[in-house]
């Protein structure tokens, strides 16, 4: 069954290979695409798929869809160093969520002001590179809740 994976934030699409973090750029945890929220003062982070919040850190989360496919959303690069400052969580680990639900809010402009990239990679964990059909091209504007890729 194919799984539609939605943009967690509004912004412009960026190829994963252009993310300034080798773990994402080299697709070590899986293929995907990133969204650049720019310098928005406030961004609502929406569930990319319907499922269970398997992991929840302030700056990163994994939603596990039915069938066990996990989608990782990482809010900015090296943002683990912020220790959660500036991130507001609206759900808890193990909560059931519907695609499009607001999970976290954060400030991309504050992340950028701190010298970090607010790029938000969306990764199909452990997927084969050819399992994704990408619905957007790098540079495209996407709105949170729009499809980024289909995972078959």
């Amino acid at each position, binding site marked *: 069954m194919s799984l539609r994976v939605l943009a967690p934030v509004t912004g412009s699409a960026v190829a994963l290979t252009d993310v300034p973090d*080798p*773990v994402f750029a*080299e697709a*070590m*945890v899986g293929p995907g695409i990133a969204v650049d929220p720019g310098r928005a003062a406030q961004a609502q982070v929406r569930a990319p798929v319907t499922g269970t919040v*398997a*992991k929840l*850190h302030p700056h*990163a*989360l*994994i939603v596990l869809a039915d069938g066990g496919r*996990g989608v*990782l959303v*990482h809010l900015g690069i090296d943002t*683990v160093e912020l220790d959660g400052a500036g991130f507001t969580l609206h759900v808890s680990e193990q909560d059931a969520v519907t695609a499009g639900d607001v999970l976290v809010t954060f400030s991309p402009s504050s992340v950028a002001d701190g010298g970090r990239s607010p790029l938000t990679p969306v990764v199909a*964990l*452990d997927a084969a590179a050819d399992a994704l059909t990408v619905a957007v091209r790098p540079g495209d504007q996407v709105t949170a809740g729009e499809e980024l890729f289909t995972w078959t």
Partner: protein
Amino acid sequence: MSQAEQILQALGGETNVRDLEACITRLRVEVDDPGKVDEPGLRAAGAFGVVVQGEAVQVVVGPQADTIAEDIEDLR
């Protein structure tokens, strides 16, 4: 040997590990001597990838990073 023990050994043992924390899919480790880090050993212990930048070592282990980090902390 458990996965946590294998990873700790491949990082050069507990005396080489200054700090270790989990970030959702990876272990972020600070080591005293990057020369003691055994990359093939880390991969053999299940790492998908290893990124070494000076004394900072990132071990990509997937979503079980939190659990593995706790297991390593228990060994230290």
